[in-house]
């Protein structure tokens, strides 16, 4: 059974149209015109147990809206969601017991308390058995080094520390499903590294099914086999990153440096640039591998150096956004 099933999910927001100026302000008090904004427009996908999936898409694409509906805090306009076979709106009490959610921009920790006290509060609110709580805290301390910040008041934590705290808080009750909405937003290199390590470890050790939304392509390359690209409320791509890259950019460039200006041609590669003794070949990954091509060329001529230029993920994503 798939852990997460989303079918024909739609969300429309009603937005009050405000008229400008003083007369408009008075008018607004009596008549309100509404505009409908379709933030999520008929999306469907399923996610098997233990998979890490990334949602990416430009700002306003509908990622957070989707995550909110899957977490049960926002009612869909139409469509179905099942998390471990249960509907998060109708059966929220059961669903949250097996679900952790982190919104990167909004902390769920209690501002007035120390980090450790905030965890204790979670323990009581989510009714987590003490042994499980302590075991989880220990496991996560090993990954994130929580012990050193446990006595700091939440309002004094740096963004990176707070994010670590939020991740721990979301996992204290051992949920089998974890939603992370922009978990690496605004973090420095060190912070991102810690969060990625946490996601990988938790997925490996506990088999947690994870969905994360991100703008950071590093997150995707390091963490996810599967990518769902959303734009304007619709899914435009869904599949493994590698597949997407190969489909959108099936060609690679090979740059060969010769000892002199005598270069060779190859039937499965097109020469697209020649600059003195440096020649750029373009080839299709479907027809020949990079290694094969280098082998063939070095059989026919003496070469000094050869590098395969990988495509930039940024470019791929940009092309994918355009649809």
């Amino acid at each position: 059974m798939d852990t997460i099933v989303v079918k024909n999910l739609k969300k429309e927001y009603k937005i009050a149209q405000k008229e400008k100026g003083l007369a408009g302000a008075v008018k607004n008090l009596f008549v309100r015109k509404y505009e409908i904004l379709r933030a999520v427009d008929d999306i469907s996908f399923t996610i098997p147990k233990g998979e890490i999936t990334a949602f990416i898409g430009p700002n306003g694409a509908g990622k957070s809206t989707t995550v909110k509906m899957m977490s049960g805090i926002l009612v869909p306009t139409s469509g179905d969601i099942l998390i471990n076979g249960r509907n998060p709106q109708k059966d929220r009490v059961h669903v949250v017991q097996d679900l952790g959610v982190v919104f990167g921009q909004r902390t769920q920790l209690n501002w007035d308390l120390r980090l450790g006290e905030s965890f204790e509060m979670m323990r009581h609110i989510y009714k987590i058995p003490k042994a499980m709580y302590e075991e989880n805290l220990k496991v996560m301390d090993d990954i994130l080094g929580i012990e050193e910040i446990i006595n700091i008041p939440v309002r004094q934590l740096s963004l990176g520390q707070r994010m670590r705290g939020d991740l721990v808080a979301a996992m204290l009750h051992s949920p089998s499903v974890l939603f992370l909405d922009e978990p690496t937003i605004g973090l420095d290199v060190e912070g991102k590294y810690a969060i990625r390590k946490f996601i990988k470890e938790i997925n490996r050790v506990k088999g947690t099914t994870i969905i994360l939304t991100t703008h950071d392509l590093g997150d995707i390359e390091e963490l996810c086999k599967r990518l769902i690209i959303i734009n304007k409320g619709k899914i435009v791509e869904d599949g493994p990153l590698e597949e997407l890259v190969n489909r959108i950019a099936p060609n690679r460039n090979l740059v060969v440096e010769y000892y002199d200006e005598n270069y060779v041609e190859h039937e499965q590669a097109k020469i697209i640039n020649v600059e003195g003794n440096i020649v750029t070949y373009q080839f299709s990954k479907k027809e020949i591998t990079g290694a094969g091509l280098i082998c063939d060329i070095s059989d026919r001529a003496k070469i000094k150096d050869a590098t395969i230029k990988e495509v930039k993920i940024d470019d791929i994503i940009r092309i994918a956004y355009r649809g």
Partner: protein
Amino acid sequence: MSNKSAYSFIYKMRIQKALAYRFDVFANIIFQCIAMFATAFFWKAIYSGYDSVQGAGVYDMLTYTVISAVMSILFVTTVEFKLMESVKKGTVAMDMLKPVPLFSIYFFEDLGNITSLFFINGLPILLIGSLFIGMPLPADGVSAALFFVSLLMSFFINWFFAALFSLLSFVTINMSPLIQVKKHILRLLSGSIIPVWFFPEWAQGILGALPFVYIYQLPLDLYIGRYTLQTAMPKLTIQLVWLVILSGSFYAAEKSMTKKVMVQGG
């Protein structure tokens, strides 16, 4: 584990936190005492040359003043600020859907806060008032008993009113000045400083129809013995009706707000 364990944790945690703000404690005692002394001097000045005004003697009014100051400690609420923060932070949808009801959490936070405030603020104020203004004793045993019954209802009326008021956070952008205005209007209209019976007839009529006098004035009147058991009963009944109305409105409004947040997004 039931919700009780969460509530008792929250309660104890709040007591502990409130005790930690030592500077606030002294500043608050001093501020409250200044207000209490000013009111006491005001009554002494008014009463010079009179034994009784509106059926109350100067001693009654001094008692009224001291007990009112102590009561104001019990009526401190933070629920408005808490909800405002949650709405501002954008976590309110998550908060409202925790396994433990959000407003129950706020209630126990307030209860913990008030418990420690009572010991570190209320008792010192009572002591200072007793020493320098006059021992604030109840009129008699029955008055004292009626006072405690009424005070309990006052406490809940005050809290539910604050909770109901806090829901304005969902419709207004600038909540904090409103909270301050509410606080001062409530103290003025509830007879906490000047009992309503000193107001002109028409004002008494209006204030009597509002719930505020049932927060401060009724228990205070009972304390200084302005009612007998018989005459107190209708008043306590009206107080109970207000409690039911306010708590009922709060539950209804909270339910509809939760629904709205879940449809429109937090």
